[in-house]
């Protein structure tokens, strides 16, 4: 079972992100489950959503306590909420930011993680350019797909088109593609740097 926890604030599409991720996994023939943490919903309030993916039926209903991957849609949460609680040592962390882990003040924390499993991308900026609104979820899902390799970009795109329609869908798809390529390029740069 692969468990993902998504952090953000109300209005940023955190719940939608989890839902789309589950749909993407479904399209690949896997079982998946997505649900929000059930806190008060207000625009701007911290929100958490969960997604589980497995090859067999998922029976577990508890919140994701030990995520294999974290997607953090809003870096202002980093020092407000315990976003990293329970993350497994070889986990993936994707953060929506134009800064680096060090600049965000979590450089020490992520020291023990595999570098190729850490990812920052400016999903909000990509969303603004393509969609015209600061909704980073589609781009972040694509970034997640790229860094984890657990889900294909095609599945993410299908899930986006499932959730949205027309121009909005295509704009989100464009943001997703850009994010995917960005993360892949970063991975290449890193492996070249390591090779040298």
């Amino acid at each position, binding site marked *: 079972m692969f468990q993902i926890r998504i952090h953000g604030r109300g209005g940023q599409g955190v719940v939608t992100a989890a839902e789309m991720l589950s*749909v993407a996994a479904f399209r690949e023939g896997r*079982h998946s*489950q997505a*649900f929000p*943490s*059930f806190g008060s919903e207000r625009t701007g309030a911290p929100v958490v959503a969960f997604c589980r993916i497995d090859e067999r039926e998922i*029976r577990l209903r*508890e*919140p994701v306590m030990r995520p294999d991957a974290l997607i953090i849609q809003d870096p202002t949460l980093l020092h407000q*909420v315990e976003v990293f609680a329970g993350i497994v040592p070889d986990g993936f962390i994707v953060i929506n930011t134009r800064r680096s882990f060090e600049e965000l003040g979590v450089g020490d924390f992520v020291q023990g993680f595999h570098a190729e499993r850490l990812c920052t991308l400016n999903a909000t900026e990509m969303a603004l350019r393509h969609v015209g609104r600061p909704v980073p979820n589609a781009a972040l899902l694509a970034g997640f797909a790229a860094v984890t390799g657990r889900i294909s970009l095609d599945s993410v795109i299908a899930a986006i088109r499932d959730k949205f329609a027309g121009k909005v869908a295509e704009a989100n798809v464009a943001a997703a593609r850009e994010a995917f390529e960005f993360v892949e390029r970063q991975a290449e740069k890193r492996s070249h740097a390591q090779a040298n």
Partner: protein
Amino acid sequence: MLKQIEGSQAVAEAVALCRPEVICAYPISPQTHIVEALGRMVKSRALAPCEFINVESEFAAMSVAIGASAAGARTYTATASQGLLFMSEAVFNAAGLGLPIVMTVANRAIGAPINIWNDHTDAMSQRDCGWIQLFAETNQEALDLHIQAFRLGEELSLPVMVCMDGFILTHAYERVDIPPQEKVDAYLPRFEPRQVLDPAEPVSIGAMVGPEAFMEVRYLAHARQMRALELIPDWAEEFWRVFGRDTGGLMHTYRTEDADTVVVALGSVLGTVKDTVDELRDRGAKIGVLGITCFRPWPAAAVQRALLKAKRVVVLEKSLAVGLGGIVSTNVRTSYAGRPDSVHTVIAGLGGRAITRASLARVLGLAMEGELAPLEFLDLDMGAVERVLAREHELRRSGPLAEAVLREVGAVASRAG
């Protein structure tokens, strides 16, 4: 057809397949997505002929349902928590009149203090009203149970409540198989009412009944529910033949054949319980699970059979009989042939508190070592409780209880885990 959709959406699609003729709805979290989806279907005429009525309260919702059902229409509504209580008079009335209304209850806690999250207090508050009560473990079972509910209710002339955990099921995306219309039509024939308001054959429905006949009328209501105990397994079997799924029925057992300890529960928590039981089994424990699907009528004989070999029973319930202890466990005890004190009550998940494998493993471990208290509140912050009680002891004007507790637990918005 397989789909990855929200539980509410799945239920709405299942209800629509049952060709309801009148749907009435009053919004309350967490059922709103169900009736919104149905409303959209009616308005776009994807579901027709059907009248969708926006009513002014839950009391009105059940009342409109009563009128529609009495006039011969297949009728559906949905509610939760406070709404179920608000319509309580009409809920009893519908059962007493013998009207086969189907209602989804998206289980949610009841205030005060106000709480929008899941537990079973709402359904339990109506457990003796004469409605059939079915509890879904998954979204697949939730949608299947609605199809079975219409069939069951119309055959017995009794209303049926399909309970599904609010938010945990209603707002969860998971894989479901939506059956095709032809199969549902084959399983669920046209509604042929036992009584109907029709100028061609006038009848008076709802007369006053005095001491000379009331006992007989109530006995018959009980007898009808008892008849359901025979019919429910039959229709679950027919459902399996038509749809190929083992959904519904009175209960499901999991690894109970050689179990010394059996955990009994209702609803979605069964999934987490099964995962926990698998872990405990891996460590050599002889433990199994009894999931009760039909809570009313209470399947006494079936429960007794399922618990025959159990040396101890742990009833894990999301409900509380204030002043007594467990509700489900009290029912279970009546059907357990062993010593009554071998039935333990674990109250968990009230007001939506997460039930985790870790906590379950701990409490089941205690049970298997014979160290579990008769009545246990899972993950209770006893320290906070004691501090609140101490303050109340000192101060007459101790203030609202809810605030005092929130202050003690230092409630922070959206803490993960």
